[in-house]
């Protein structure tokens, strides 16, 4: 290349390994070997059609294909039932055993089942595929036809992203969570500030964060336009993956001299809980500024914040309390296993007792699909990742994005609330 040797970022390391190269440079186009693809009940049917249109008969490796029916499941109407049927039949025909239906949301399910490992390259026909970056994988969303191409060839083309390193230092105050960190970061970078780039999350705060919290952050990398959000593997990741990580599995680390397009450092110790107001995840305000905002509905769930840690935090604020009159609280554990665990821990009883409706694991209201669609003028505090206009229902409804603890406190008070107002 004639350029001086420079170190590689985590994203560059993983892409180099999957394209048979020693090193790659940002901006280069690569043909990569893909470890795993994921498609869902909305995107898989289109991929199946492209696959057939291309005249293909067999997928190259059924064991590397995951199909997760999660958006409109349990099937809400005939059209969604037909889409799922098409996927189910395709899975049977092609011998795809990693087919899931009603088991939960892909981005919570795949990590939980050990289907994504550090250093892997994962493509999903869903924009929040970037969630798997929490496990040190390079994972990104692509189109359905891109997925069909991997089914036929095992390969895909990718452009090497430049990386932005985000360093978080300091102790988080009580009630400040991974969700607050990523919302703050998105407001800082702007919703397209990381277009085409990879975000590499690091620092002391991150190493104290749970793997679940890291998934919340990686999940929303796309909300800043990023191709991927990625974390270095540490003791916590190894523990999380303990029963899945094969002996001697090679785990990539960024080089010391890695070149970042930009490095941003955050001191998180003075941060409080935040909320993203309509209609952009980048419209972030301190929760205190919004305490007069009355609400109609609260949603706790989704691939962003529907995991055990999230449900435990919400239960902590709801235990022995009631949802405010006139407010609907919906709880959607992100997977069937999380549902079962919450049941065993008594969290579902706490929620039901507080007056919540417990829904099956599904994307449900996150995309205005079913299970809690908003009407005209209604306001919802949600732990999901997008508050775009009309995302949860009527174009004149409003979504406020927050952490599970802020959402739970808001459900109790019937307005946007700081957790400290409930948990004295």
């Amino acid at each position, binding site marked *: 290349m004639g350029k001086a040797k420079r170190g590689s970022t985590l994203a560059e390391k993983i892409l180099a390994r999957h394209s048979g190269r020693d090193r790659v440079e940002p*901006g*280069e*186009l*690569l*043909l990569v070997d893909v470890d795993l693809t994921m498609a869902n009940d909305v995107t898989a049917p289109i991929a199946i059609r*492209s*696959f057939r*249109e*291309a*005249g*293909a008969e067999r997928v190259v490796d059924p064991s590397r294909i995951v199909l997760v029916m999660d958006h409109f499941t349990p099937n809400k109407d005939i059209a969604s039932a037909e889409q799922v049927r098409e996927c189910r039949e395709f899975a049977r025909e092609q011998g795809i055993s990693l087919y899931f239906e009603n088991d939960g949301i892909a981005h919570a399910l795949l990590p939980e089942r050990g289907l994504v490992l550090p250093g892997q390259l994962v493509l999903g026909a869903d924009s929040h595929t970037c969630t798997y970056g929490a496990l040190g994988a390079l994972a990104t969303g*692509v*189109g359905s*036809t*891109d997925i*069909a*191409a991997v089914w*036929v*060839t*095992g*390969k895909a*083309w990718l*452009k090497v992203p430049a990386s932005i390193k985000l360093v978080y230092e300091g102790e988080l105050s009580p009630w400040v969570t991974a969700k607050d960190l990523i919302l703050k970061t998105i407001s800082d970078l702007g919703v*397209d500030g990381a*277009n*085409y780039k990879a975000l590499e999350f690091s620092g002391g705060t991150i190493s104290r964060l749970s793997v679940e919290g890291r998934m919340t952050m990686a999940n929303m990398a796309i909300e800043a*336009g990023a*191709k991927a959000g990625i974390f270095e593997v540490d003791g916590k990741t190894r523990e999380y993956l303990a029963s899945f990580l094969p002996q001697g599995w090679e785990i990539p680390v960024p080089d010391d001299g890695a070149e970042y397009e930009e490095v941003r450092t955050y001191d998180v110790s003075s941060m409080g809980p935040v909320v993203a107001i309509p209609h952009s995840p980048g419209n972030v305000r301190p929760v205190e500024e919004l305490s007069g905002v009355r609400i109609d509905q609260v949603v706790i769930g989704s691939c962003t914040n529907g995991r055990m840690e999230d449900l435990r935090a919400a239960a902590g604020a709801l235990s022995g309390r009631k949802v405010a009159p006139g407010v609907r609280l919906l709880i959607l554990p992100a997977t069937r296993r999380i549902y079962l665990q919450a049941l065993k821990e008594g969290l579902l009883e706490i929620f039901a007792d507080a007056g919540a409706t417990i829904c099956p694991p599904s994307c449900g209201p996150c995309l205005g699909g079913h299970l809690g669609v908003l009407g005209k003028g209604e306001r919802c505090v949600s732990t999901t990742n997008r508050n775009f206009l009309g995302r949860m229902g009527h174009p004149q409804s409003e979504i406020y994005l927050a952490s599970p603890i802020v959402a739970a406190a808001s459900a109790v008070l019937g307005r946007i609330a700081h957790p400290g107002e409930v948990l004295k």
Partner: protein
Amino acid sequence: MKYEGKAWIFGHDVDTDTIIPARYLTTWDVSLLAPHCMEDVDSGFAREVEPGDVIVAGRNFGCGSSREHAPAVIKALGISAIIAQSFARIFYRNGFNIGLPLVECKEAFERVKRGDRLSLDLEKGEIKNLTRDESYFFNPIPPFMRDLLREGGLVPLLKKGGWRVSSL
């Protein structure tokens, strides 16, 4: 792979609604959509563009929605390639996946004027400005991506068995 044509200049952040306004998206037929391409910013474009011509633009070309109509309409008009300082991510994928070459080059946007004759060499990574006798350079498009372009996009490539047979 080489292309030659005259340059059409557009600015920064040309979004998919500018490329093809949403009000026309009641049809998938690109031949019906093509006459409206860029009409809100350059009303002569769709009428006067000639096969082989090249679009030169600034940052973040193709931002906005993921509609595949946008690159398809540009391709249908005979545009041979788009040179921009940068592209929005989904537009970039959609462009190559329908067989439209996209080239990132900062200098071209700063130097090229409307109507300049350009010749592009994807293999060498060179843009020659024949009008001004200048050259600008970009990351060469690797062989497997040229295969994708030569076949006319991802679906036609898959029909031939994909990259397994053509470029490895």
